């Protein structure tokens, strides 16, 4: 039960955080070229965006829950279980970020879920 609660917190906060961070980076646009100066400039700009901090705050909650969970559970159980965030992530990307999630991409997400189910049985 404690394991399920921790995983729910990790998945929901992690997904919401990822969507917020993704929204911030999409506002910046494609980073090019990938040189240290350009990367540092982009990071400086990214960390002045409100959505970036909202996202990082939510990801931090998920991250510290993961840190606590890893102190008593196996990494090869915990990390695959958080793959539930694939479903919440694809839904968030489609409805909040307006990405086109093609049938092939949904099929991939479903296979990932099947993989997670297999992992939780063992």
């Amino acid at each position, binding site marked *: 039960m404690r394991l399920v609660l921790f995983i729910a917190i990790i998945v929901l906060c992690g997904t919401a955080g990822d969507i917020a961070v993704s929204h911030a*980076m999409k506002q910046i*646009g494609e*980073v090019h070229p*990938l040189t240290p100066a350009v990367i540092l400039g982009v990071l400086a700009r990214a960390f002045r965006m409100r959505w970036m901090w909202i996202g990082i705050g939510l990801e931090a909650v998920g991250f510290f829950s993961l840190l606590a969970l890893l102190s008593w559970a196996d990494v090869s159980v915990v990390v695959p279980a958080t793959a539930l965030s694939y479903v919440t992530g694809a839904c968030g990307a489609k409805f909040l970020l307006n990405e086109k999630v093609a049938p092939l991409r949904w099929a*991939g997400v479903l296979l990932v879920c099947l993989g997670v189910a297999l*992992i939780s049985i063992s």
Partner: protein
Amino acid sequence: MSSQHLDRKTYVLLASMVFFGSLGNVLLSKGMKQIGEILDPSPMALVSVFVKTFTNGFIWLGISSLLVFFVSYLLLLSWADFSYVQPASAIGYALVAVLGYFMLGESISLTRWAGVLTICGGVALVGRTEPRTTGD
């Protein structure tokens, strides 16, 4: 920007995300296991756990790896779909299982290996879709 060049950038940053993300999680797990399960929730005990956590070398190496992971992730998201990046980076599960097996001595059953392989199949399907579906 040619789509071939975009693809190469995408794969390089995905590889960086997968490698440093997996390595970071395994290092954090190793560090937290050295500290042991948090059984006593009193403030003094938590302060002691906090000090032990942030003076542990594995924890700092893990955090450094995760920082590299995060920068790669941010750069990738500046052009690629979140619904592409997230599933495509799941190939890291195979790496986590292998690293957990060799570095932490965790046992991995046949069913768990089958799960890891199924996840990889899902990643392969996602990899066949266009990395970017939103306009500039």
